[in-house]
């Protein structure tokens, strides 16, 4: 089997996912087109040679519907020969798009794949694609469906993270993101979004609140008390985890991932493709895998998938130089570090979604690029990227510099 290599990674800045967010004026498809343009232009890519464009998109409805990467390719004026497909594995869609592309290359069907994701949460909205998972009693009951925030609170309750613990993590995430931006660590990948006249619409992650401290977070009320109590979801948590007496609600907007707009794309190819196109590979996809786990607690999948992946890749935790775990909620990351006894110095070293935001379908590809940049900056070799996923799934990928 051929190895899949990473030749480039780009992302948009993340705009606040509200009507007053800077990217709210930009259609979802255009966010996708912008990253496709960047991949082409930065690499002098002949787009007729692109075997596939795979984009993750969690709510592919309305303007994001109808295979958004194909539409984005039209707007980006790609050659008609470059097809596209849209996938969803909820929050890991962007990483799964990369894994899917890598598999196509490894399997020999494709030589060049652009993989990434796009989500305009301000324009399309979260949960707009509906779904039996939470609506249909025949599914919701056996799935022990709970909103993710309640699941995150359940993790905190079950694994003993206090409000102070999760808030302290959030403060640190903000600090790290600020420092990384200040020092220009994201420069390599972030492409400013400009209008048709060349005027900049957004060139930085605008969700960040670098002044956040424990005191400012303490003033926020927990967000999931209402759904937990009135909506009945605390009872679902207790029935699934009867060892707890109730749910300790600790998460709020300040220690959960931000709602933002954004897109990302990664250029993947075989060794041969690199030679043909005269591109130098930056890294190799060493291994990837997925898991499904208990869906009520939902967000502990990164632990399970990491265990499975290390075993599959015949590697040890100590072989990984940097970990990048999406900061969906603070407790998700705290549980991961607790389970593996990982030092925070090796994980999310430049902050994460609590500070910069989580544009669902795009995030996997974004943090993939972030950790690749950081490996290069620190001159380290190996990184593991993983995300927690709705309905209890997990995706993880190990990359190795070449």
């Amino acid at each position, binding site marked *: 089997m051929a190895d899949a290599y990473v030749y480039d990674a780009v992302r948009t800045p993340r705009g606040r996912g509200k009507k007053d967010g800077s990217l709210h004026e930009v259609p979802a498809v255009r966010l996708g087109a912008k990253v496709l343009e960047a991949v082409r232009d930065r690499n002098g890519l002949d787009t007729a040679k692109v075997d596939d464009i795979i984009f993750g998109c969690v709510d592919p409805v309305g303007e994001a519907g109808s295979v958004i990467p194909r539409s984005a390719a039209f707007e980006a004026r790609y050659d008609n020969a470059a097809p596209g497909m849209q996938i969803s594995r909820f929050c890991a869609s962007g990483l799964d798009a990369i894994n899917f592309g890598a598999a196509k290359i490894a399997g020999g069907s494709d030589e060049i794949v652009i993989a990434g994701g796009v989500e305009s949460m301000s324009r399309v909205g979260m*949960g707009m694609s*509906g779904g039996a998972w*939470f*609506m*249909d*009693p*025949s599914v*919701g*009951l056996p799935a*022990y*469906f*709970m*909103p993710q925030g309640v699941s995150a609170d359940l993790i905190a309750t079950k694994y003993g993270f206090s409000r102070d613990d999760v808030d302290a993590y959030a403060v640190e995430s903000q600090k790290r993101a600020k420092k990384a931006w200040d020092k220009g660590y994201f420069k390599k990948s972030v492409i400013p979004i400009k209008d048709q006249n060349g005027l900049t619409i957004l060139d930085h992650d605008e969700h960040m609140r670098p002044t956040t401290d424990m005191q400012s977070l303490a003033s926020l009320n927990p967000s999931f008390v209402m*759904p937990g109590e*009135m*909506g*009945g*979801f605390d*009872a*679902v948590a*207790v*029935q699934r*985890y*009867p*060892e*707890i*007496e*109730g749910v300790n609600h600790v998460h709020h907007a300040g220690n959960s991932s931000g709602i933002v707009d954004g897109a990302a794309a990664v250029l993947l190819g075989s060794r041969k493709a690199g030679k043909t196109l005269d591109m130098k590979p930056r890294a190799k996809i060493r291994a990837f895998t997925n898991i499904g786990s208990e869906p009520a607690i939902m967000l502990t999948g990164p632990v399970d998938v990491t265990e499975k992946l290390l075993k599959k890749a015949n590697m040890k935790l100590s072989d990984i130089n940097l970990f990048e775990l999406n900061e969906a909620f603070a407790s998700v990351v705290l549980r991961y570090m607790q389970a593996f006894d990982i030092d925070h110095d090796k994980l999310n070293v430049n902050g994460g979604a609590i500070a910069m935001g989580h544009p669902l379908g795009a995030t996997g590809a974004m943090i993939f690029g972030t950790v690749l940049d950081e490996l290069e900056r620190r001159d380290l070799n190996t990184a593991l990227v993983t995300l927690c996923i709705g309905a209890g799934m997990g995706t993880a990928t190990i990359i190795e510099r070449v």
Partner: protein
Amino acid sequence: MADYKNFTVETDADGIALVTWNMPDRSMNVFTEEVMDELEKIVDKVAGDEAIKGAVITSGKETFSGGADLTMLQKMLGLFETEKKKDHDKAIRLLFDGAGRMSWLWRKLETSGKPWVSAINGTCMGGAFELSLACHGRVAADSDKVKMALPEVKVGIFPGAGGTQRVPRLANTQEALQMLTTGQSLSPKKAKSMGLIHEVVPPKKLVEAAKKMIKDGLKPVQPWDEKGFKLPGGPVYSAAGANLWPPAIAILRRETYGNYPAATAILKCVYEGLLVPFDTALTIEQRYFTEIMQTTEAKMMIRSLFVSLQELNKGARRPVDVPARKLKKVGVLGAGFMGAGIAFVTAKAGIPVVLIDRDQEAADKGKAHSAKLMDALIKKGRASEADKEKLLSLITATPDYQELDGAGLVIEAVFEDSAIKKEATEKAEAVLKSSAIFASNTSTIPITSLAKNTKRPKNFIGIHFFSPVDKMMLVEIIMGKRTGDKALAVAMDYVRAIRKTPIVVNDTRGFYVNRCVLRYMQEAFSMLIEGVPAPMIENGAKMAGMPVGPLALTDETAIDLAQKIMKQTIRDLGEKAVDPRHMELIDTMVDKHGRHGRKNGKGFYDYPEKPAKKHLWPGLKELYRQKRAEAVDIEEVKQRLLVTIALEAARVMEEGIVTDPREADVGSILAFGFAPYTGGALSYIDGMGAARFVALAKRLQKKYGKGFKPPKLLVEMAESGETFYQRFAPESAGEVRKKAA
């Protein structure tokens, strides 16, 4: 037209047919095969007769209808079981067709082209309310007697004649789900505000108003059959729907713990049904109804919660040859919490009560309890000041035993002390006629030994109430060795008069209920000692279907009381009668930590000031080495708690303490809420089959000790394949069980 046995049809000058349902041989209209056949003919007649413009359906009785005859459904299910053994597929098909009979008849009425109006003159339940919902117009009489409900879920089934489809097409989805999944009763006002009925009119104008709807040009087309129909709650897949359905599913789980398939099926019917056209929706409902009728839960709940409960309430176990006697006066000795409660329920039934305590002040305090309870009812709008005055006037509070003169029944509820009881008994007997019945409300002293205090042991009996008396629906009637039939008859007539359910129990320590409850608590003590985390015990109990966890229950009844009882048991029966580990646990709680239970705010739970909620005492974790949650099988926790009770119920049957399985089942549900979906402690065994139950008990015995050893009776039943209801077949003589839901 005398064409029908159960209906009269009179067409007036305006061409409006008044269809009056009035079954000749019943006190209440119910759906039978014959009723359905006749209704179908009437629907056809109205549809086909040019001279008839439309029809009004009402009842000739005080009530509209109780709905389907559940005993008929029970028979149908019995037949299905037999048929299924012969030809599985055919039997299911027949059941499916049977399940749809009523639904499609109502659909036929609704699409017949002629307007129908239901004139709801009284209680209108189940299938009858579904019939009304199929009518194009619905008018209800403005009266307290009019209650409308789809209560099927309470007996393990659900409204299968369009109820799950028409309600959410008339009312908003949330209210519809609430009504359907709880079986709640609606007043005419409430039903109108929900959009389920059109008009509420004075009872005398009911038929007139119904006819007027037709005269005014009522369209014989339901809203959902009109083009462009919109659901009142909005589409399922909409912002409103996304706010409603996920919590609705969670709340169903919270309320049912997933133990009630019928409630789940209602949610599924509504969800799936609202996504498709009406006829398809009815088919979906029919499929689920067919499924639910085959569940063990439906079978057991119909039997215990409907059929058996009614039979017991009607005095199934009453000796038939003793004539009924109305009680003119009841004496209550002891005006403490229990005595005061007994006085209240007695006076509430309209029976004069003499409430006696050692001095006037104590007696008055007992009477004040009734005033307090009435005040609470008045506050809720369920009683008036006049009701309160009347009730209080029936209670004579006094220290004077002479006032007992003329009482037909005296209930002793004094302190649980043999000497005090002896004195009370003798003082009362000195005044009472020799024919009067003397009952003790003791919970701890055997009736036979208390009977030594009387000169008339034949007239001495136990009437054991549960606390709080006004809420608890069960009463154990305890037969002493020499208690006679007349005493039993009087006790049963009394319990019936106060509208509680009696079960007859032969004398033994703890009688029936407390023996079971004790096992429940003891199993929890064992688990605590093993290191099972306390939340898993309490949550496990609720997940198994119990209303209150065993530790919370121990707190309610008081831990120091448990300590007293355990010590008394050791004194009476020897050291071996109490598990020394349990004694140690309780001694530690009471003596070392001062935790007496709810009453001192410190028990297995802490009870902080309201509005804070009670929570398990964190110190419990320090008492025993805690197991990891992952090392505890919650399913096994659930099984242990139910099995330990069921085994005790089986022992009680084996010993002949309770002789009728209906009483053991209904008693277990009413007294301590034994997982109602099982149909009760014995039906739990019958439901899984004695063989499987014995295997389960033996497995638990291996792991958790001899408390789980199945008694010989069960081992025999496991071998023979018998059920309790076969082996101890209840006599069904003398009762009418024709009622409905």
